[in-house]
């Protein structure tokens, strides 16, 4: 972007390189929030190490008036606060861009580039002169670069001061020092450089109906609104903040006014095997229960997930994906768990899964997950990832339908049980493959034995081939039936397009941006994003309807493409993979590049429509 000469107001990307554990995080999100409050679409992505203190960490901010907020690797401005990473940070700046660095120590000759402008600001010495105490000085450096950016980008400083006021309302002393730090950076920039830079902010009104939110907070809020009462988990990045947020929200909304006691119970389990076990126990008793985990935890839950599937116990599992396999890169994103989720556990199994694209969907899908889990009496996965879960997203303000009543599924009440002749746990009474359920403690007639060993439609233990087959066949029908209940794919058909594109989850933003770029280039492509599994019937159709469909996903093995082949009846020869799995969020150029490359190879770079 840095290269074109058009007005660069509200269209640029900014990256800040610091050291983790030095308090830059709050400065960075303040920066993002300020942009947001100026009414300009913005996204912030945290690129952090799997470590607590002392290693390089980055924060990437993209400002885009058209609302393209996916990650972009071309940075117009680099705030290089970490000498350890000067080299690569400076290399990453787009030609024509700017490097803001701490000029307290002068820059190595060989780091200099003549196609970028270097703006040195002596942050360290400024803070040493103006503040006391090592810790404070380090913290204030972060606030100071915010001040400098305010000047260079024409950020509304009053807004920032206002925000500082809100933030430290309780601690006036802190307000002063922060205000001072802002001014240090702001004034220095004003005095020494021509402000603003061509890349800059201009007030808009494009964010008034939006909020800033992480997917994990949104998912947790969904659990609260869905009426979930039991959460069992084991800490793991990047899933941890779901339970942290759940506890926080419950602290606000789930205290008994009289007693101050909790209308929820969060158990930090000893591991993920126990966490999912607790969820099954709670669901079996009739509570809405969930767990949050990531790849390694998911693997550990495999055995129990098969039990839940076969014994038909509801459960909601949030899988916030990170880069695998194994421990992999815990602080990088990926979409590598698709197979693990939908086929979790040994033997014949198939699980319902929802694939949110952003925090907004995390909230709504989280609520649906509980409805689906209880309706179909089976585990339901909400499959997000580190990018959605932990990054700051600008999303439309969340709405709650007061008319919502939870779908508790076919649960027999005490009255029902009084009236029924006999209750048979696994019988397909209604012909929809969904049996009736009872809860412990309700009625003697409701009693049955839940087991993962062979059982017949009456819930009795069996080793009989027919009785066994009868039940597993019904379960297969039941799960297939869910394809009509999971969220429909998001589809945007291009008129008579020969090409289609299918994607999933967090790829959304980058893909839509890429499609615009390609269209501008005369390449029209229809778009579909799957949002639930088992795939609704339309999914296979979409692929049949196009000459060639690009499947865009963030894993090495093209797991979505494979799933589409075997589970959506799509024919493999009509699909081609566009994959990125290096751990960063997907960006439009990955998609554009992948698609154009394929088209060129295939020698069919079309003039557009068929």
């Amino acid at each position, binding site marked *: 972007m840095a290269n074109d000469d058009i007005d660069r107001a509200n269209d640029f990307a900014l990256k800040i390189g610091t050291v983790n554990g030095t308090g830059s995080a709050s400065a960075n999100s303040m920066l993002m929030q300020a942009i947001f409050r100026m009414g300009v679409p913005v996204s912030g992505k945290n690129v952090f190490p799997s470590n607590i203190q002392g290693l390089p960490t980055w924060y990437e901010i993209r400002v885009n008036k058209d609302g393209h907020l996916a990650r972009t690797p071309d940075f117009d401005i680099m705030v290089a606060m970490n000498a350890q990473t000067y080299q690569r940070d400076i290399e990453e700046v787009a030609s024509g861009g700017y490097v803001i660095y701490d000029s307290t120590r002068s820059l190595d000759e060989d780091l200099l580039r003549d196609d970028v402008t270097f703006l040195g600001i002596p942050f360290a010495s400024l803070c040493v002169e103006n503040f006391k105490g090592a810790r404070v000085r380090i913290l204030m450096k972060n606030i100071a670069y915010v001040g400098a950016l305010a000047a260079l980008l024409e950020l509304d400083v009053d807004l920032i001061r206002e925000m500082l006021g809100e933030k430290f309302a309780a601690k006036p002393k802190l307000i002063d020092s922060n205000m001072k730090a802002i001014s240090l950076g702001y004034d220095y920039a004003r005095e020494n450089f021509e402000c603003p830079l061509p890349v800059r902010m201009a007030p808009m009104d494009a964010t008034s109906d939006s909020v800033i*939110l992480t997917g994990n907070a949104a998912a947790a809020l969904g659990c609260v609104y869905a009426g979930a009462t039991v959460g069992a988990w084991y800490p793991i990045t990047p899933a941890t903040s779901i339970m942290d947020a759940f506890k926080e929200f419950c602290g606000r909304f789930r205290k008994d006014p009289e007693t101050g006691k909790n209308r929820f119970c969060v158990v930090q389990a000893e591991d993920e095997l126990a966490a999912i*076990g607790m969820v099954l126990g709670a669901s079996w008793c009739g509570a809405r229960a969930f767990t949050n985990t990531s790849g390694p935890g998911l693997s550990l839950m495999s055995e129990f997930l098969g039990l839940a599937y076969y014994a038909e116990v509801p459960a909601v599992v949030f899988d916030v994906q990170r880069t695998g396999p194994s421990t992999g890169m815990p602080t990088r994103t990926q979409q590598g768990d698709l197979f693990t989720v939908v086929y979790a556990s040994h033997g014949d199994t198939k699980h319902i899964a929802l694939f949110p694209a952003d925090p907004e969907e995390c909230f709504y899908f989280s609520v649906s997950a509980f409805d689906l889990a209880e309706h179909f009496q089976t585990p339901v996965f909400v499959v997000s990832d580190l990018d959605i879960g932990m990054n700051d997203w600008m999303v439309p303000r969340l709405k709650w339908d007061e008319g919502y009543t939870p779908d508790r599924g076919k649960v027999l009440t005490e009255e029902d049980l009084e009236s029924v002749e006999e209750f048979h746990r696994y019988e397909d009474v209604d012909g929809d493959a969904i049996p009736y359920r009872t809860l412990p403690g309700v009625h003697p007639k409701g009693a049955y034995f839940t087991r993962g060993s062979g059982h017949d439609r009456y819930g009795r233990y069996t080793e009989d081939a027919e009785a066994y087959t009868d039940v597993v066949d019904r379960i297969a029908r039941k799960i297939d039936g869910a394809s009509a209940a999971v969220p429909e794919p998001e589809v945007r058909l291009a008129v008579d397009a020969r090409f289609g594109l299918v994607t999933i989850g967090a790829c959304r933003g980058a893909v839509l941006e890429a499609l615009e770029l390609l269209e501008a280039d005369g390449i029209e492509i229809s778009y579909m994003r799957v949002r639930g599994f088992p795939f609704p019937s339309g999914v296979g159709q979409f692929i049949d309807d196009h000459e060639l469909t690009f499947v865009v996903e963030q894993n090495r093995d093209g797991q979505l493409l494979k799933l589409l082949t075997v589970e959506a009846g799509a024919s493999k020869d009509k699909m081609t993979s566009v994959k990125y799995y290096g751990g960063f969020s997907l960006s439009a150029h990955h998609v554009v590049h992948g698609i154009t490359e394929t088209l060129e190879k295939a020698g069919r770079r079309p003039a557009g429509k068929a």
Partner: protein
Amino acid sequence: MTYITKPAVRHPSLEENALGLTCRDYEGAMSTLCAGCGHDSVTAAITQAFFELDIPPHRAAKLSGIGCSSKTPAYFISESHGFNAVHGRMPSIATGANAANRDLVYIGISGDGDSLSIGLGQLCHAIRRNVNMLYVLENNGVYGLTKGQFSASADVGTLSKRGEVNRLGPIDPMSLALTLGATFVARSFSGDKQQLVPILKAGLTHRGFAIVDVISPCVTFNDHEGSTKSYAHTRMHNYEVVQTDFVPLMTEITAGQDREGATAVTMHDGSTVVFRSVAEDYDPTDREGALGFLHASQVSGEVATGLLYLEESGEEMHSFENTVDRPLVEVPFGDLCPGSAALEDLQKEWR
């Protein structure tokens, strides 16, 4: 219920409990265990205990892992829900169930393989959380259902049926439980219903995690010479440390009963457990002492039985979690969902 339950011919003679139920009403499906299996006697004792405590069958919840022992919940109280989980993971199911509905009477049945090998971690953490339940460990020193491999409770020098010798030291669930701060620790013998029933009743009444280690011989794989978990060996070396007597709330302790040298502990529901130490100055409320005693008797090859330790603090998982008294499953949706207005307010902070 859809079990082949034993024909419940109601003997007019059969004694009824406060609910007007006979012990027959606490029975379950026909056992499929080997004739003479210790586990069946434990099942009988459990049936008896529930009957005598007047627990409504459907208010009980029966949980287990996998193993011959873990099959037994199917053989008692057919009118209560049962959950036969996966191997070694019953404690987590129980913890979650209890979190959701704290008002049910939870009984978990496990085996020494299920509890001390694959399930050891979960057992220890259920103890640590003091989950309110009765945990019965049917201990036979072997993996019965998989045909007799040594379990972690097999003593050093034990001979397997195939003639292999166990060289590894045993994990004693009692010392382990005491070390981990368990509040109700008891051991008994499947062959001693006299002793077992009151202990089970006390365990069911205890608020918190009550673990009962029941030596329950496996007649098929571990009842031979050279086994320390056989009927013969257990009868010979079983040493009752404390006699336990469970006195339900309603029956007051009348002068008639002799109470010399007996300690009485009042349970949270008002009923009483009366101990009489058989062993010289054994104090079932002294954790450290109990640990030392167990260690000593293990060295001397004795199987100390009885209610070995009891601490009725009443603190259990829900006190730690500060959960509302009403079972979470009964809290109405309206009290759980904050509604649209709250959502509006909340989002003001996210701008």
